[in-house]
Structures are given as structure tokens and as C-alpha cells.
């Protein structure tokens, strides 16, 4: 059979094998070429990955360094250094917003190594309303000027920044950025640096940095604001404290002054009352002095006319001593009135009322004024007895003057002493017609008098109120009762 002939079947098999081998070789060659291309791509990706990893690591380190700083100038410095040393741009400038000049002023720069260029860029000032910045206010993430840009507004900045290609990132609020970060390259050296392009990788790196720095600056500004607010609060508190101290001091001084005035007024009142007392003493001594004079004259006359018996002498001496004793008592009462109170003591009120009335007895007698004292129990007061006498004297003298002035037919002063609600009450009333309604609210005010400048000082009742209410924590009131006035002391 033809088909069984080995010579005829061997040739096609060999040809077939060679053909297959050639095809396999070609296929292998194609595969190798694909592998070589893939390997090339792999190396490229690997390199990109390394660059990205390095960048992230360095960005992390930057973040760590800057997160611990509270110095915004340091953030600016570190950022421009980072851009130049790690992001491979040739140059970086930080411009900070200045409210005073309505512009952005250079505050940190790196990558400018010629002193003349450093000087120029350090003085850089870009007005807020520079047209090329307007896209940032409108929310643009960045401004880009590439080497082949022709946009007039951006091109004009080249010479000022000494950068042929650059990126500008706003930091802080977009509508009114707190700072601008400018990065880029000069024309001569761009080839050795990261080019300014719209490439995703390049912008990603800068975007990451701008995001980080922007948030650091925002935090820093917030911290600064808080710190300023805290300082202001502290200053306000200090001012308030100083004002309070001044005020307290003034109040203290005013109170001291008032107390001093009170003391002076009380003293004046006392002196006024003392004048009254001296008049009383003079009056009360006139009659006993007359008596002593008569007794002495009688002694002389009797001696001349009938001689002095022992019994007569004894009788005359006895009567003279009685008169002198009465006069001495009057002096004692007067001295009691002027004895200064040093501290509060508990005193029986009835005794004080009695002493006070005795001081005025002569004067009351002259004017035919009758006195009544009605006492319930034996009330006591814890206070200053001399000052209390002064109060009683003032009220009683006022009653006397009113009774006299009104020509009251049967002048009468009634004093009631009793206890009410745990308090001692002394009420002194007269029948002199009472206090007119229109002046009742004013009679306790200082320098208010109805007696005229010759007779009244206007401090008597004010002094009484001060003594009772301030010094002895009581209450002094007045009201009209029946046909006269009633002064009520509650302590």
C-alpha cells in the first residue's frame, strides 16, 4: 500500500516537524518579546512605586515633625525645605497674607542660592487682587504655569518669582487663602528637577503636601486665635480685677469717709446737745446757788443779830450740803453724758431714760412741760448707753422745741418702755401737733431742719437714725399719733 511506504510518509513528517518547530520558535520569540516589554513596564512601575513610597514616608515624617510644632514660621520653613529637598522642585516660596498691606508677602524660601536672587524673592509682594490669583478665590485647587504657558497673567509672575514654570497652591480658606505656596523651576535647571506638568503623579504629590500644610496652618491659626482670645480674656479679667480693687478701695474710702462724717456729725450733735445741757445746768444751778447765797447771808445776819447757835449752824450746814449735793448730782449726770462708749454693753433702758429726763428737767420745768414715763418690765438694750442718751436728748429737745413753738396748752411728753416681739421698744410722743406729712420722709436726712439756721443744725435726727440703725442695729421711725408725733425706737 502506498500509504504504508515508509519513505513516502517520512518526508512529510520531517517537514511537518520543521514547520512546527519554526512556528514554535516564532511563537516563543513573540512571547519573549512580550515578556521583555512586560519586564520593562514592571521596572517602570517599580520605580514609580519606590518614588511614591519614599514620598509618603517623607510626607509622614514631615507631618510628624510639624504636628508637634506650635510655630507657624517653622511650618513655612520646613515646607519649603521639604519641597526642594524631597519633592525635587528647584525652588519654593511661602507667601503669607498681610492684612496691613493687602498683599501676600514672602516669608520663607528655599532653592534660591544666589544671594541677589534671595534678596529679590525675599522682598516679593503680590497684591491680593492680582488678576492671576482670582481663580483661587473662585475655588481653584491650584494655579499652574508650565514652561509653554502663554497666559499673560501667569507669565507676568515668572520674572517676579524667578521661575519659568510654577505651581501656586492656596493654603487655608480658598476664598481668601491665608498663605500661598509657590513651587517651580527656573528655565536653566528645570531638566534636573520635577517638571511642572498637569500629570496626575506630580499633582498628587503637591496636593498631598498642600492638604497637609493647609490643615496644619488652619489648626495653627485656630490655636493662635484661641491663644489670643485666652490672652484677651486674661487681660480683661485682670483689668476687671484691678477695677474691682479700685472700686472696693473707693467704696472702703467712701465708707470710711462716711463713718468719719458720721462721727463728726455725732460729735457735732453731741456738742449741740452739750450746749443745751450747759444751759440746763446753768438753769438748774441758779436756784441752788441762790439758795446757798441765801443760807450764807442768813448765817451772817443771824450771827450779827442774835449770834449763831450750834443748832442753827448745823441746820444751815446740813441744808447747804444738801444743795451742793444736788448740784454735784447734776454734774455727775452731765459727765455721764460725755463719757465715751468704747464697746457695746447691756444697760437698763429705764435708768437711761431717767438720767436723760433729769438732764432736761430744768428746761422742761421752765416751759411747763410735763413728762410721763410708763414702764412695762425691765427691758435692756445691748449697745452704747451714752449714744442712746444722745438719741433720747435729741428727740426730747425736739419735742420741747415743738411744744414751745406751738404754744401747746398743756404740753406733755409721754415715754413708754416695753418689750415687743423680742425687742425693746421706747416710744416718745408729744402733743405738739405732729410732723407735717410733706416733710415726714425728710426729717431723718442730714442737714434738714425746720428750726432755721440759728437754732437747728439739721443733723440731730439724722444722727439719731445713724446711732440706732447703724451703730446699734435697731430701727428708728416716726409717725403722727393723736395730736402729736411719736418717735419709736426698736432694738
Amino acid at each position: 500500500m502506498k500509504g504504508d511506504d515508509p519513505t513516502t510518509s517520512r518526508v512529510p513528517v520531517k517537514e511537518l516537524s520543521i514547520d512546527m518547530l519554526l512556528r514554535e520558535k516564532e511563537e516563543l520569540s513573540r512571547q519573549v518579546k512580550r515578556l521583555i516589554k512586560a519586564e520593562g513596564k514592571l521596572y517602570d512601575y517599580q520605580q514609580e512605586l519606590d518614588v511614591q513610597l519614599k514620598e509618603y514616608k517623607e510626607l509622614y515624617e514631615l507631618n510628624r515633625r510639624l504636628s508637634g510644632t506650635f510655630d507657624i514660621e517653622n511650618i513655612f520653613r520646613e515646607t519649603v525645605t521639604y519641597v526642594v529637598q524631597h519633592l525635587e522642585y528647584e525652588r519654593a516660596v511661602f507667601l503669607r497674607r498681610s492684612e496691613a498691606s493687602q498683599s501676600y508677602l514672602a516669608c520663607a524660601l528655599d532653592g534660591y542660592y544666589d544671594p541677589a536672587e534671595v534678596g529679590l524673592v525675599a522682598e516679593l509682594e503680590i497684591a491680593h487682587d492680582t488678576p492671576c490669583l482670582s481663580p483661587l478665590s473662585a475655588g481653584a485647587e491650584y494655579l499652574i504655569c508650565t514652561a509653554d504657558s502663554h497666559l499673560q497673567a501667569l507669565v507676568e509672575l515668572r520674572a517676579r518669582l524667578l521661575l519659568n514654570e510654577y505651581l501656586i497652591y492656596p493654603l487655608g480658606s480658598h476664598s481668601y487663602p491665608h498663605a500661598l505656596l509657590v513651587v517651580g523651576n527656573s528655565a536653566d535647571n528645570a531638566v534636573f528637577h520635577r517638571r511642572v506638568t498637569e500629570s496626575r503623579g506630580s499633582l498628587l504629590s503637591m496636593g498631598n503636601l498642600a492638604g497637609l500644610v493647609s490643615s496644619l496652618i488652619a489648626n495653627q491659626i485656630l490655636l493662635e486665635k484661641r491663644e489670643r482670645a485666652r490672652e484677651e480674656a486674661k487681660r480683661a479679667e485682670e483689668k476687671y480685677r484691678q477695677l474691682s480693687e479700685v472700686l472696693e478701695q473707693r467704696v472702703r474710702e467712701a465708707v470710711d469717709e462716711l463713718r468719719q462724717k458720721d462721727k463728726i456729725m455725732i460729735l457735732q450733735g453731741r456738742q449741740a446737745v452739750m450746749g443745751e445741757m450747759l444751759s440746763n445746768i446753768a438753769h438748774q444751778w441758779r436756784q441752788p446757788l441762790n439758795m446757798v447765797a441765801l443760807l450764807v447771808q442768813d448765817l451772817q445776819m443771824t450771827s450779827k443779830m442774835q449770834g449763831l447757835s450750834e443748832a442753827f449752824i448745823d441746820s444751815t450746814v446740813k441744808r447747804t450740803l444738801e444743795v451742793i449735793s444736788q448740784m454735784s448730782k447734776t454734774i455727775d449726770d452731765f459727765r455721764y453724758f460725755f463719757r465715751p462708749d468704747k464697746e457695746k454693753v447691756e444697760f437698763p433702758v429705764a435708768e437711761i431714760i431717767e438720767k436723760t429726763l433729769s438732764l432736761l428737767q430744768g428746761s422742761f420745768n421752765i416751759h411747763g412741760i410735763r413728762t410721763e414715763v410708763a414702764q412695762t418690765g425691765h427691758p435692756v438694750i445691748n449697745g452704747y448707753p451714752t449714744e442712746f442718751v444722745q438719741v433720747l436728748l435729741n428727740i426730747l429737745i425736739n419735742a420741747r422745741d415743738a411744744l414751745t413753738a406751738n404754744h401747746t396748752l398743756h404740753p406733755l411728753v409721754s415715754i413708754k418702755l416695753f418689750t415687743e416681739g423680742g425687742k425693746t421698744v421706747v416710744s416718745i410722743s408729744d402733743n405738739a401737733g405732729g410732723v407735717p406729712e410733706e416733710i415726714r420722709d425728710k426729717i431723718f436726712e442730714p442737714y434738714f431742719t425746720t428750726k432755721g439756721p440759728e437754732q437747728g443744725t439739721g443733723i440731730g435726727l439724722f444722727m439719731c437714725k445713724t446711732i440706732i440703725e447703724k451703730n446699734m442695729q435697731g430701727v428708728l421711725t416716726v409717725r403722727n399719733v393723736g395730736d402729736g408725733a411719736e418717735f419709736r425706737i426698736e432694738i
Partner: protein
Amino acid sequence: MGTLVGVGCSLHKNPVYAGKEAALQALQQGGITKPDFVFVFATVGYNQQLLIQTIRDTTSGAPLSGCSGEGVITQGMAAETNFGVCVMAIASDELRFANVRVKGMGLQAGLAGERLAAEVRPLLAKDAIACFLFVDGLVFDFDPFRKAFEESLGHETPLPLFGGLAADNWATRKTFQYHDDQIFSEGISCVLMSGSGRVAWGVNHGCVPIGTRRTITRSKGNIIYEIDGMPALEALKDYVENGSESQWNKLTLNLCLGFKTPEHIKKDYGEFLVRYMMDKDDREGYVTIQSDVTDGTELWILRRDKDLIREGLQAVSRQIRGKLGNHKPKFVLQFECMGRGKVVFREEEKIELLRSLQEDIGSDLPWIGFYSYGEIGPIASYSCIHNFTAVVAAIY
């Protein structure tokens, strides 16, 4: 005194600050007041004049040589950035360093070799140890240079050449060579080391072929016009994403060309000499490499292999330790291809590899290097240029 060596580095962007920082660190680490010689490697982002001037001022005007790289290397640090500088300060009564330079090399590498030999010849002494070359990596063609240099120098045994091709971080605009106060491009900065010392070195790449053999069908010098009868770029386009029109420098890092290693160095180097395609012409479809080829030369397309790179560094370490014996190096210079850095390794992997090598040879040694556009180091007794390679020279 022996030999005092200190290394400093800085990644600061300000050239004055960076230069001062690196130089001061070097002086401090070496305990040196006035160095006899200074090596400097830096990257191209700096104002080079300011940088070098600052280093010169800080190192009391000591003779200085070096170049720009794609990155800088010191102990535990490999920074591939546009802003990095490392300085090695040396004070020695055992070793002498004489530096010369050739400017205006252009594309005439052979002439540059002759001119350099003329500069070196008067300085040659019997105890000459090696030459360190820092050459513009954008215009250099090694083979005619070496041939002219060695022939013009007339040294009885060729001086071992070590060094690297200056880089500019793929900008392919301008690389810089440093010679004292001078900074120039398209030139060679050369250091002749003489005295009592030796060099233990290791060289290794980490590339593997990814296809079958190809053949150069049209070439001239270091330009390959056609491969297998088609424009060179056309032959390569299937291996690169989006064709060859963009990011040429990075794309060619993933691919390189491998040539059969000459028999006399095959044992020490391995099967392939690796070449980086430093330039291309889209219109004519050719590529340029850093050594000469001829029509009919076989070539393979190679790719970098991370495992091979790791193993290769271990081999470098073994080679050096084998040569050192019990001697401790005074300092180490490393010339590492930029295609073996961040473009292939993760940052951590890269540092780990470097540390591993440094720990093997000496983690306390003054160590300086740079990422280059090409590495120069002898295989056996033949000085070669390499690509995708690490050349590590330990001076002891």
C-alpha cells in the same frame, strides 16, 4: 603615616552647602587636615562650578579629579538623584596621585588617547600602579582610545585602566569631568596612581541572551547600521513598548547588545561582552555603542537578570578577596552601571545588594563610586570597557 582616607557625602540641593558638607565629612572621617588628593563624584543637578570650587576651598586646594554620574555611592548609600555628591580625601606617603586631563575630545577618541598618553608619560614612574579614567560618556569610543593610549604611552606592560564614563541622568545633554578647578565636557579626567600599593578588582555583568544569534551586516566604527540586513532599530523595535521613538535612554536599559567575548579574556569574563546603545538615529535607523564593531560580527540581544546581577556581585567579591589575600584595602572605588540601579532594583534591594558586597570586602572601608554610562576595568591584563557591569577596585 601610611594612607589616611575619608569619605563624605551630601544630598543637599545647595551646591555650596553640599560641597562643604561632603568635603568636611571626608576630612573628618579620614582625620586629614590637608589631603594629597581628592576624588569627587557628583550628579548633574548642581551648579558644578560652585560645587567643585567649594570642595577645593574646603580641601585646601588639593589636586582633584572626578566626574558627574547618574548617582553616587558610599558605604551603605547609593543615591541616584540629580543632587548628590561624594568626596574621598586621601593623604598618603605610600601612594602618589598625579592628575592630568584632555579636553575637546569630541569624537576623536584615538587622538584623545594619544594626547592623554602625552600628558601621562612624563609622570610615569616604575612604581606606577594604575590609571583612573573619568570620561565623557556621551562621545566616548573606548577601543580606538585604548589602542592609541597604550601605544603612545609605550609602557612595557599596559597600565591597568579603571574608571567610569561620566553620566548626566539620561538628560544626554552634557556630562562633566573634574580636574582641579576645571569643569569640562567631552574630555577625560585621568589620575595616575603610583607608589607602594596594588589593586584588587572584580568585574561582572548580569545579562543573559533572549534570542538567537544575529549578525551585524553594516557598521562603521562604533555605529551599527544594520542587523540581519535590516536597520538596527527595526531589528530591536519588537522588544520595546511604543517602538523606539520615546525615552530611548530608558528603553535601551532594558535591552543591550552582547558580543562574543574574545578568547583571551573569555575565561575571566564569560561568554558575552555587553554593550549599551548610547545613541540612535531614527532617520537612518542606526544605533551607537561605546566600542568598535565590524561587519559580520555576531551579536545577541541581552536583557538584565536580577539573579545574575546578584550572583555577579558575589563573584566580584570573590575575585577581590582572592587577590587581597590577607591585605586590607586602603580604599575602594566602585563604578556601577546606571542600568543596574533603580531602573531594575527596588530601593531596598539595591541598598541590600550594595551592603552585601561592602560587608564581604570590608564594611569599614572608605568606599566611593558612581553610577556610570560605561565602566572601565581590566579583564585579566586587558583593559576593557563594559556596560551593565560593576567594576570594583580595592586599593591595598
